[in-house]
């Protein structure tokens, strides 16, 4: 084995591109391991963990780290790196017009109907988003790790400009049927969503899509994400109010649904008042202790539109036997799905520790593998800021979750593993191909029950049926409803306890 580590100053590519580059280079002849990444703190940890010796660097440097067979050709491996990096930038000749370098510059080149989508690292996201707001345009900020005071400043300014800021940390939006970020493909209808929760929004999209086949008006026309912190005390629902105003004014929207992670109580109260003042009826789906789960909210929406909820689909029940230990391990890519499951599980099973805890004393350190396997029920959101700093979202890069899945399965105290898998635009082209082997591996020694909520529609580019079948074949039980999946996991653990 021989290692080659080099820094490339001034080179830049986004974390998703670099993940793809790393994968491409790993497949090159003679390459044992390859990691091409920006030298962020988290990536340096990963590189050190892989045994690479990285020289002093700044987060603006690109690190190319290769581990080669003894007789492998370094030049050929580096050529593979360069080849994989090339398509990341469009070629530009002297006579061509160079691409815009800022969001503001790009907006000057487009029509007045343009909407901006910002997914740069969080430290730079506010600056790009301000360009859009300054131009009076709506903007979706996918980026996380944006300081809350910047969010407040951005949204306060947007209010004065009549612009809608979706995010920061907004995973999902659907505007006029166009999905931004992670979004499922759904039939249009007469429902408008406001979502302070990306995967919560996706859960409602897919449940309503499933229930609405052939039903009049059941479908979503716009899903306006507002970012996970919008209903916090600090932000006070600035974007939620603007989104409600827009949907109330839209003649094609008959019913507005608000979905959120647990909001600040006083903000929730104010929101309820605002909602009552609108001409369009509003269904509030705010997660919290004693509140409804998202599936129940979807059922209530169907009822308001005069329809009965269907039985939510389940597949692979034959795979699932009794719990193999006392503890529930939830490993999520969707923060709201994680929240929902925690709320449901803690009511029945008792305290659940998490990196996004329901109360501070339940916090665990997501960077400490020992803490992740604490001697209580645990649920981890791998999409949380601390785990995505300088790396791709787990919907794209499943590495961290798959590693933890193996550890959780090896822990004899683990009784049931609860997972989510989210389809749609922006997600992996074939995520089950990455998760299914990990599930199969996890169940190799013990037939530990693995329950998956598969958030997707039959119109999603990945194909819902194929994804479900792959997971079932790997030994999972697969639900469309995360609440149903969670209930099933709880039931199995209760059964073991009884």
């Amino acid at each position, binding site marked *: 084995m021989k290692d080659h580590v080099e820094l490339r100053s001034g080179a830049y590519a*986004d*974390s*998703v*591109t670099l993940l793809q580059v790393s994968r491409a280079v790993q497949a090159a002849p003679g390459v044992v391991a390859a990691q091409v990444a920006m030298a962020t703190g988290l990536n340096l940890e990963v590189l050190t963990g892989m045994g690479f010796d990285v020289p002093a660097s700044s*987060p*603006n440097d690109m690190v190319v780290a290769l581990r080669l067979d003894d007789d492998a050709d370094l030049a050929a491996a580096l050529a593979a790196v360069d080849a994989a990096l090339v398509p990341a*930038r*469009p070629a530009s000749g*002297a*006579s061509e*017009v*160079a*691409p*815009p*370098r*800022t*969001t503001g*510059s*790009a*907006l000057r*080149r*487009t*029509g007045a*109907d*343009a*909407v*901006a*989508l910002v*997914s*740069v690292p969080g*430290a*730079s996201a*506010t*600056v*790009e988003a*301000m360009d859009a707001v*300054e131009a009076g*345009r*709506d903007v979706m900020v*996918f980026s996380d790790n944006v*300081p809350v005071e910047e969010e407040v*400043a*951005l949204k*306060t*300014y947007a209010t004065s400009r*009549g612009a*809608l800021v979706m995010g920061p940390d907004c995973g999902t939006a659907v*505007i*006029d049927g*166009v*999905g*931004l*970020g992670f979004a499922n493909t759904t039939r249009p209808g007469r429902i408008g969503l406001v979502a302070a929760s990306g995967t919560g929004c996706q859960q409602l999209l897919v449940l309503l899509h499933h229930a609405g086949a052939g039903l009049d008006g059941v479908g979503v026309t716009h899903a306006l994400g507002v970012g996970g912190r919008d209903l916090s005390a600090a932000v006070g629902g600035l974007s939620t109010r603007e989104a409600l*105003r*827009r949907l*109330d*004014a*839209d003649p094609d929207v008959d019913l507005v649904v608000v979905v959120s992670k647990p909001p600040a109580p006083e903000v929730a109260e104010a929101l309820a008042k605002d909602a009552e003042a609108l001409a369009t009826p509003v269904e509030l789906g705010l997660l919290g202790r004693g509140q409804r789960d998202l599936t129940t909210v979807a059922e209530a929406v169907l009822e308001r539109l005069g329809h009965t909820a269907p039985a939510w689909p389940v597949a692979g029940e034959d795979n699932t036997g009794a719990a193999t230990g006392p503890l529930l391990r939830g490993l999520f890519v969707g923060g709201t799905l994680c929240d929902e499951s925690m709320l449901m599980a803690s009511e029945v099973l008792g305290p659940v520790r998490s990196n996004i805890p329901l109360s501070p004393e339940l916090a665990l350190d997501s960077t400490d593998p020992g803490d992740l396997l604490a001697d209580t029920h645990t649920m981890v959101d791998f999409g949380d800021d601390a785990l995505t700093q300088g790396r791709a979202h787990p919907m794209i890069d499943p590495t961290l979750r798959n590693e933890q899945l193996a550890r959780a399965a090896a822990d004899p105290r683990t009784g049931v593993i609860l997972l989510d898998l989210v389809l749609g*635009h*922006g997600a992996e082209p074939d995520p089950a191909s990455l998760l299914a082997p990990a599930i199969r591996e996890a169940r190799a020694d013990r037939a530990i029950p693995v329950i998956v909520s598969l958030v997707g529609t039959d119109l999603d580019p990945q194909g819902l049926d194929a994804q479900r079948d792959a997971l079932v074949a790997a030994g999972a039980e697969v639900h469309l409803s995360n609440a149903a999946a969670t209930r099933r996991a709880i039931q199995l653990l209760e059964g073991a306890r009884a």
Partner: protein
Amino acid sequence: MSTPLVTVGATSPTVVACGADMFADAVAGQAVDVERVDWRPPMPGTEADLAAVATDPRRPEANRRAVEAMLGVTAHLVDVAPASEVLGLERGQFLHAGPPIAWEQASGPLRGALMGGAALEGLVDDPEDAVALFESGSNVSLEPCHHRSAVGPMAGVVTPSMWMWVLEDRATGRRTYCSLNEGLGKVLRYGAYNDEVLTRLRWMGDVLGPLLQAAVRGTAEASDVTGILTQMLQMGDEAHNRNRAGTLMLLRDLSPAMVTSGFDAKDVSEALRFVGGNDHFFLNLAMPACKLALDAGRDIPGSTMVVAMARNGTEFGIQVSGTGDQWFTGPAQVAEGLFLGDYGPDDANPDIGDSAITETAGIGGFAMATAPAIVRLVGGTVPDALATTRRMHEITLAENPRWSVPVLEFQGTPTGIDVTKVCRTGILPQINTGMAGAVAGVGQVGAGLVTPPAEIFPQALAALADAARAAR
């Protein structure tokens, strides 16, 4: 009328995607037009300051005001007079280009120009004797042109007896000043000070200055310098390294009054030949016209617009609207370009002169696309020229509707350099420049392209960020 979603309409929206290509691809996959931003990380260590300035609630309006004020200025040529009269410059006081500097730090061309200036004023008989005078520092003082509403090309040395153009903004009565252009080759502004140089300067003081004064005062309609700039930009001048059309238009304005001024016909003829034979003559009007416009944008709290770029041959400095008179400085760079005769890069002094005021205002290097005739002089190609002007639009706040570029579909020149955009993109202002010899007395050795030292923009940004935080 309710306000609909901005995106609701007959046409599907365009999405501007800034960040991960994957999301842009996902949008494009839904048959929606995507404009992709070629985003790169900002200059190292600037993220927090950029965010602080971006969210400064004063900034958008402050920049709008700065741009509006700058574009609202029209410079008229109202007088020609000695610096002692219009600037109050006294014996022993010397102005120079760029940020403040002392004799000890002064480079060859600045020293050469100061030595020649001292001889011109009769402070010494032989320019070489001026070294001791400036070293002693007694009865002499150095001060930037910019601190007296003036701009000086290259070394920019102004002494009390030199005649100055006087430009005025009619709306406010504000004035700016610049010396008369000496021509090319062995000239004081490039640091040459031999007898030929001093003889020419004396003729300019004795004959040219008074004659131009008579012509300007005798011309009923004051020359609209801003208007001449508009026309010359459409005639192939970028008004920094090429001023041929501008010079001839100025002559068109002034020559009737010069002829009837009552001055000796031989002097008038000599003056017309001197001006007409000096393609750079109009530069000394373009520069104060730019300064007049930019000064209108000064001192607006929260504004991130650069209002001056200037070099003293040792340091490159900028001033920013939102940070008052503070200079942000770094080492001046050596230009890249073409050299006269057998001079080479080793002979060139680092960048010098207030003439980058033209780029600050949106012409010169920023208007390269309009001046394909000079791209070779400054070492470039025609596609480079088009790309340069387009690139400068990435770091500016506005387009100047008056100064338009025919070959770019009459798009206005990129105007109002934004410190934040420079830090965000890493794109540095492009400056067309002449190159002075590094040794005092040599004169011009070439011309080319140069940029400011990158680090002065994060410095200015940090000051803007501090001000923004203090204003919260």
